[in-house]
Each structure stands twice: as structure tokens, then as C-alpha cells.
């Protein structure tokens, strides 16, 4: 039996058995709600958010509801900025509410909001307070701790951050150079955590190393010196951790000379472009690897036609947050035997994989609030297009979507590949 929305369970009264004048009239029609009291309408709680630096714009909401249809969490749950405003207005304290942790900061609401209610500012601001008060979901706290202790959210050994390069050597005979040895390179490749440690992230890193090698790019990685860019931890509320790590990385970059920083992870792109400059890190231009490779595809000798129908998932932090929609598509179109099919929700209106803003580490928490994972909803959409490959270019996505392919029973119908893996396959030099 469904619960009435916005009514706390202890305000609902229902007797298991009701007998009136000898007649059993048990049933849900006997459910009683306590009367709503007038002071449930609390301007103070809106003000509490609005008084938090960054939280001001929540108070702008005029309930037009344009955010709700494009909110990816609402598609699988009961969520979105308009609803958050209304709930806060009617007595919910956002600082201690489960609503605080469901936003993936995908920015689709801000795209359509006529009043510029900015969840990208509101969420980290309110979460930061909640983090300081100790009100963080446990699984997220573990990730914060891992990042603090090991420099990466996976809790892997920081010493082994460059261990993946041994696979590049083994598979392709490629020697991935370290900035520590070179001091100077055209491209400083910031690999990030998932591409360094997660097995499927490593697959993409190995492929990208091969591509850089074939192109003869003068590049280097930071290896064991590299630590998480921490953008998602920041958006999840760990602002202190973010600042500490940002200062570390800014100092580290100052040791080396590079023309550009190339990132695998759109979240790192976002941090370097928008957040690090606020902390004094304005000395490097950052690009995503797809932006770097898009114009050099004809130099790669891609001779093997793949014969795949491919659909592409726009990462929120590459597309909406940083305006790059074409580079990944240019890459895919340049690969022989790739037929690109777009999903209905693409580009500016792309659906979110659920990994951003801390969502990557909140799947357990989220399962209490959504009917299916966002990644599952997205995989169903990809399957509907008739594609056999879901191409991605954000390291959060490979693992999320592969899990979703399994859990939605689409194994054998759809595979998830990083774009650079498809490139290397078409070069006829597949890994192992």
C-alpha cells in the first residue's frame, strides 16, 4: 500500500482491524492523516538554505516545473528542484533530508530554469554543512576517507597508480613516460583515478597510450605523484578535502612544463577549468582527450571496418558543463564501419548516468529512493535505438553501464566501450 506523499509515517493512523457495530470494516479506507498544522509552512527553512553561501538561488523558484521533466532522478524517482523547494517550504529541512544526496549535479535543470535556480551551487553548499555536521551517508563517508588516505576514492594503493602502464607495455610495447623523468612535455596527461585503477578504466588508458604513441605525441603522466582531482567529492560536499587536494595538484603542476593538460575524465576537466583557477591554478589550459584527438583521426591508420551500430552517451561534465558535444562524435564518425545512432535524449538534453556529484558512490543509498538506477534507464534507451555498442568517454560510465547492461538483462545485446577502445580496435591492434 502506497504512502501518501509528504506525510511522515507517524502522522498516519491505520488500525489493522476495525470492527464497527459487529461489522469488520478493516482496510486502507480507515487510514487517517493527522491534520496538517499551519506552522508546517516554514519560510525559515528556505531562508536557511538561501543564507548559506551558494544556496541563495533556491529561494528564486516560482514553481513553473520546467526542471522536473528533465531531472534524471525524477524519471526513476520522485525528485527535482521544484519539488525540493516545495518540500522545504512545507517543513523539510534540506540539511538533514534524503533529498540532499540524490542530485547528481547533471545541470539539466539549470539549462531550462527561467529563474536560474542553480543546483550546481546549492547542492555542494548545503552538503558541505551536512558533511561538517556528520550527516553523510556511510558509503560516501568511506569514499571521502579513502580519498583522504590513499589519494583515490577506490582505496587503492597510491604507489600502484601507474601500475596500469605495465599493461600498455605488455599489450602494445608502449612505454608510458613519466613527467618526473621528463620534466617537460607538450602534453601532460592527467589520467585520474578510475582510468588508473578500475579494470575497465585501465583498458581505455592502455588504448589511449597506444594512440598517443602512434601519433608520436610528446607527453607524460604524473604516475604515483598524481592524486584525485576531487571534483566529485567537492560536489558531494567534501569541500575541505577538495581544497587540500587542489592545492597539492596545483603545486605539482608547477614543477613541470607542459603546453596543455589532457584529461581522460570530464570531472577533472571541470575542476581544472572552473575550480582550480579560484585557488590560484590558472597556469594551464586543459582539454579532454576527445578534443585532442578529434582532428588527428586520419593519422591513426584505422583500416579495420568495425561494422558496429554505435550510440553515444554525452557525459554531463563534458557536454552540459563544458560545452563539448562534437569532439566525441567527430571521433566516432571517423572510425570506419561505425554507424552513429543518436538516442532521443542526447547532447544538451543528454540523460545522466547517475555517477556525478557523488552519485558514483551512493548506489546503495539511492536504491531506497529510485525504482531503477539512472544507468539502467539509460541502457534501456540505448538498447531501444538498436545499437550494439554504447560508446562513452567518461571513466565513470563504463563500469556503471556495464553493470546496468547485466542488471537489465541486455547482456549479448549491447556492449559498452570507451571511444578510444573502438579506435584501437579499428587500428587492428587490439589489447592482448
Amino acid at each position, binding site marked *: 500500500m502506497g504512502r501518501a*506523499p509528504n506525510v511522515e509515517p507517524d502522522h498516519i493512523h491505520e488500525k489493522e482491524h476495525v470492527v464497527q457495530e459487529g461489522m469488520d470494516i478493516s482496510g486502507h479506507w480507515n487510514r487517517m492523516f493527522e491534520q496538517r498544522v499551519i506552522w508546517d509552512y516554514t519560510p525559515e527553512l528556505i531562508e536557511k538554505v538561501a543564507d548559506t553561501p551558494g544556496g541563495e538561488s533556491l529561494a528564486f523558484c*516560482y*514553481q*513553473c*516545473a*520546467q*526542471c*522536473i*521533466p*528533465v531531472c534524471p532522478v*525524477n*524519471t526513476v524517482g*520522485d525528485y*527535482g528542484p*521544484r*519539488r525540493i523547494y516545495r518540500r522545504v517550504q512545507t517543513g523539510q529541512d534540506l540539511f538533514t533530508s534524503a533529498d540532499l544526496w540524490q542530485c547528481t549535479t547533471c545541470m539539466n535543470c539549470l*539549462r*531550462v*530554469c*527561467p*529563474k*536560474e535556480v542553480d543546483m550546481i551551487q546549492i547542492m555542494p553548499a548545503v552538503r558541505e554543512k551536512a558533511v561538517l555536521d556528520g550527516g553523510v551517508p556511510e558509503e560516501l563517508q568511506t569514499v571521502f576517507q579513502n580519498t583522504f588516505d590513499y589519494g583515490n576514492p577506490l582505496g587503492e594503493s597510491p604507489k600502484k597508480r601507474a601500475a596500469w602502464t605495465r599493461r600498455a607495455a605488455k599489450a602494445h610495447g608502449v612505454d608510458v613516460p613519466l613527467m618526473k623523468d621528463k620534466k617537460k612535455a607538450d602534453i601532460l596527461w592527467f589520467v585520474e583515478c578510475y582510468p588508473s585503477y578500475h579494470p575497465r578504466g585501465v583498458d581505455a588508458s592502455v588504448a589511449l597510450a597506444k594512440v598517443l604513441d602512434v601519433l608520436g605525441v610528446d607527453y607524460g603522466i604524473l604516475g604515483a605523484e598524481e592524486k584525485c582531482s576531487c571534483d566529485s567529492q567537492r560536489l558531494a560536499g567534501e569541500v575541505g578535502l577538495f581544497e587540500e587536494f587542489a592545492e597539492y595538484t596545483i603545486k605539482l603542476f608547477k614543477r613541470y612544463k607542459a603546453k596543455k593538460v589532457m584529461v581522460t575524465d570530464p570531472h577533472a576537466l571541470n575542476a581544472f577549468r572552473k575550480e582550480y583557477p579560484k585557488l590560484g591554478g590558472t597556469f594551464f589550459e586543459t582539454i579532454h582527450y576527445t578534443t585532442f584527438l578529434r582532428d588527428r583521426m586520419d593519422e591513426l591508420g584505422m583500416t579495420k571496418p568495425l561494422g558496429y551500430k554505435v550510440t553515444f552517451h554525452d557525459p554531463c561534465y563534458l557536454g552540459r558543463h563544458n560545452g563539448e558535444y562534437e569532439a566525441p562524435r567527430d571521433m566516432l564518425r571517423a572510425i570506419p564501419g561505425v554507424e552513429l545512432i543518436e538516442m*532521443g*535524449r542526447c547532447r*544538451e*538534453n543528454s540523460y545522466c548516468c547517475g555517477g556525478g556529484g557523488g552519485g558514483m558512490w551512493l548506489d546503495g543509498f539511492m536504491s531506497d529512493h529510485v525504482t531503477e538506477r539512472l544507468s539502467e534507464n539509460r541502457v534501456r534507451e540505448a538498447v531501444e535505438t538498436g545499437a550494439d555498442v554504447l560508446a562513452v568517454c567518461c571513466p565513470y560510465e563504463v563500469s556503471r553501464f556495464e553493470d546496468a547492461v547485466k542488471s537489465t538483462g541486455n547482456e549479448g545485446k549491447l556492449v559498452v566501450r570507451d571511444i578510444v577502445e573502438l579506435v584501437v580496435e579499428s587500428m587492428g591492434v587490439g589489447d592482448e
Partner: protein
Amino acid sequence: MPDRPILIVGGGPAGMEAARGIADLGYSAVVVEQKSTLGGTPVHSNYAALTPDFRDASEAMGAMAAAIENRDTVDIRLDSTVTACERRGDDFAVTVETGGTASEVVAGAVILATGFRHFDPGRETQQYGYYEHDDVITLCDLEKMLKAGKVVRPSNGEPPKRLCFIQCVGSRDRQIGNEYCSKVCCGVAAKESIEVRKMVPDCKTFIFYIDMRMYGYWENEIYWPSQEKYKVNYVKGIATEIVKKGDHLIVRGEDTTMGRPMEVPMDIVVLSVGMEASDGTRAMAKLFGVEQNKYHFIETIDGCMNTVTTSVDGVFACGAATGPADIEDSVSSASAAAMKAIASLRAKAAAG
């Protein structure tokens, strides 16, 4: 000088009403209109019936034009634009170009009645796919069909079975920069919804809105009848996503009163586009040096107590040149502008 004519720029409802007022009071006017006919936006944007009283737009504008045509004291210059203005004492020496030929008009006062333009829904964002989907249209596109007496889906020529209006497109929006309410679109949508229901009785019709702004008599004259008599469905919540699925457009939104998502198939989606300062309003404001507000409408001085006097002595403005206005507002402010312009002529004459 009181014998100088008053220059009126714009031959829409406001300009025509100002000219009539001036002529009726025994003064003379020169009306400069860039199009080849009088009537303004109601005629040139193919309005079918006026909001809120359903008067035939061409007939109503025709009557207004007839009231000033063939009068000795009203000089109507069609296909004409004002290209320069210089002050000559208290007078305005204005260059009017007609088909490449320039002539000079020396006016004692000026009334700017240069109106508005409709917001282009494809300009700022492609949110609603106006240039992508044939069956996504604007209020004006629908007016044109209503005028032609045939409401059909542009994609296939079939009458629609389901049609919806999306309100506040290009209005009340900080990102677009049009923070104001365009004032008329609620009424126009309600009026058009009634006309659609009359013309295509089995077409289910919806209006998605934030607030219905039906002030005064619009409430009982169009809002209530559309809902009560013509069974138009009003749903509080603006749809944001239009996706083509097969033969239909799927409109995704939220019914906020129910707190429920909605996904509704539609044959036609009508975007209720708002008002912006017209190119003519922007150009004439600059040419006559009158102050504009941040939305490029002409600013009138003294707040709500004076709706027609501009920052330049002897220059007045009326109608939608000063901000979103319906026809009622336009003819009212036009009369006020005529009165104040004449008063200004007389005051200068008295001062000698």
C-alpha cells in the same frame, strides 16, 4: 508651433488611434508606416480575432484605418521610414524616406508607436525544437491557420486530435533576459484554444502554464468560457521536453498540483511566445534619443503616473513601444499620447 503637424511613427492600433485623436481635436498628423498598409501587427501577423472580444482583426483594424484615411488633417505615408531627425527650435525636422525618395516633415511633436515583435522561440535555446519539428508552432502560426479557417498539422495536413499550448515561452525568463511578463499570451492562448475547439471540435486541447494571468474581464470573458464551455484542460506545470516519437510529439512535463510527471502525446504544440521591443522601436528610440529600459522598450518618465511622456521634451510613446501591451492598453495610451502631444504644442505656442 500649434499649426505644425504631429509626427506619428507607426501605423498599428496605437498609431492609428493617436492620429484619429489628433484629427478629431482639430490638429494635424503625419503617420509614417514602414509597411504598405495600415493595421500594424494584428494585420501583418495575420491575427484572426482580437483578444478578448473575438472581433475580426482585419475588420477592426480596417475600421481604425478608415477613421483616418481621406482626412485632410492626416497625411499617411506608407512604405516609409524615418531616417533622420534634427531639432529646429522647438520643432523636429524629420527626414522621411518613401521608396528611396527623401522628404522633410517639420513636426511640432512626435509620437512613437512602433510596437513589438514576437519572441523567436528558436533564438535563445532549441528547448522546444521549433525549427526541428513541423508540428511545433507559435501563437502567430496558429493565428494564421485560424484566419485561413483551417487548423491542421503542418507535418501532414491532418486536423489535430490533441493540441497543447506551452505558456511563458520567451517571457519571465532570466536566462533569456526577458524577465517581464508579456501580459497578453495567457489571454491569446485561451482565446485561440476556444477557436480551435470551435473549428476542430474533437481536438483535445491543453494549456500548460505557470500562472494564468487573466486580469480584469479576461477572467470571465475568455478564461472561464475556455475551461467551462469549451472544455480546455488547464494543467499547472510547464513542459520542457518535446521528443518526436513516430507520428506524434511526446510532451514531457509535470502536473505540479498532482506532483506527478506527465507524458502526453500531442499532434500540435503551440508555443505562447511573448513580446519584445520591435526593431522599429529600437531604431526610433535611438534616432530620437529617448531613454530605453534594459529590454529596449521606450522608458516613460514618472512611473505609473505618466505612461506616454519620454525623456525627450516633445517626444511621446504609446502602445507596445513602451512595453508589453494588449490592444486595449495600446488605444488607451495612444489617446493619452495624442492629448499630451497637443498640450505640448499649445504650451510652446503660449510661451511664444
